[in-house]
């Protein structure tokens, strides 16, 4: 597992660690039921204070993403696999959309811009509807 943390970004390191782990779990790099490294190992690997790791694990626990089993360690909950499955299901949808856009000779930046525009349009539409309601 490679998790790079940036101590000069301003974002507290424990939050960065929480985000990185959530991402790894969402993408299936860490699977449901899998055990996370011990506090000590994680602290030594990332060269960060062990209390930072403790705090990140507690955050993940209160978000219902991991469970702390006393004496045996920290495990990713089975229930989070539902979301990972959903992400897996979405992959072919996005792949075929990108295939078709590339067939139109659009490059990476074009596709990213189109995607962001579409999301922004929908966001504005949602907000307008909410304001009218």
């Amino acid at each position, binding site marked *: 597992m490679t998790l790079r943390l940036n*101590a000069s970004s301003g974002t507290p390191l424990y939050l960065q660690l929480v985000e990185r782990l959530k991402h790894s779990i969402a993408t299936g790099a860490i699977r449901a039921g899998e055990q996370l490294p011990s506090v000590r190992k994680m602290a*030594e690997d990332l060269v960060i204070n*062990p209390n930072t790791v403790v*705090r990140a694990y507690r955050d993940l626990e209160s978000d219902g993403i991991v469970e702390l089993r006393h004496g045996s360690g920290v495990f990713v909950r089975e229930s989070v696999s539902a979301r990972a499955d959903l992400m897996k299901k979405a992959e072919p949808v996005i792949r075929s959309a990108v295939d078709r856009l590339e067939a139109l000779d659009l490059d990476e930046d074009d596709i990213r811009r189109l995607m962001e525009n579409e999301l922004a349009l929908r966001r504005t539409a949602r907000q307008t509807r909410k304001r009218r309601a």
Partner: protein
Amino acid sequence: MRERHGADEASAEPLVSVASLSRTFGSKKALDDVTLAVSRGCVFGLVGENGAGKSTLIKHLLGLWRAERGEVRVFGLDPVLEPTTVLGRIGYLSEQPDLPGWMRVDELLRYTRAFYPRWDTAYATQLLEQFGLDLDARVKTLSKGQRARLGLIAAEAHRPDLLILDEPSSGLDPIVRRDILEAIIRTITDEGRTVIFSSHLLDEVERVSDHVAMLHQGTLKLCAPLDDIKAQHRRIVLRFTVPHADPPNVPGAIRVEGAGREWTVICDGSRIHVPAMAQSLGASIVDDCAASLDEIFVAHAAVN
């Protein structure tokens, strides 16, 4: 999960306590009424510019200097009166480790070992291999990085209760700096041991510290758990409709910096309601995020 700061440890005596410590060199106040405590099992980061008083403070902890005014206690003892007991439990590495150049690496380690009954030969050997140090090399022929690593072994291999590192990373490459940070983490994951770490490299301090003290011109500007310092300081970028020649007056700000229409405010976000503050100034918020330790440090150093 293991709690490193249990209730009984928190209520126990601090490992190091400094009360109203002052020291002058000629007309210069090197330390001015400094009071702080270091609790057991934590990494205590000491930050400040060159000449801020970090090394002067550390030399008092080592008993090299007697307190002119105030009191210093390490393990509950006066390090000037009981140097053998205190120093026997401390591992110390300075910016320029004072190692005899004519000795060979193995001679130096045998010599150091003689001072410490708790010297762990297996651990020293493991570190020697990890660092790729040649036992037969003369100390004076070692590179700056290898000399720092040797100093680290000498400081660490007797598994001291307190490891003091005074600007250990100065002028070293990132790989050696990482070795030093790893030594800090190893030390505190070993139950109950404590580290005091002075540095002007604030991202390193942010990485490993539980508690941070900031010295500026001999006075203690900040001394608090790193989490609290991070939670309290926000960096807010404001944009004004018209340019300002002088910094806008932001009530409660620690520092306001910028030019024209865009100004950056470092402030205690727990005390200021940011949207209300921006509205009252007639500015819009461009960015609002946690400040880095570097920005916090610069903001406090600028306040006199």
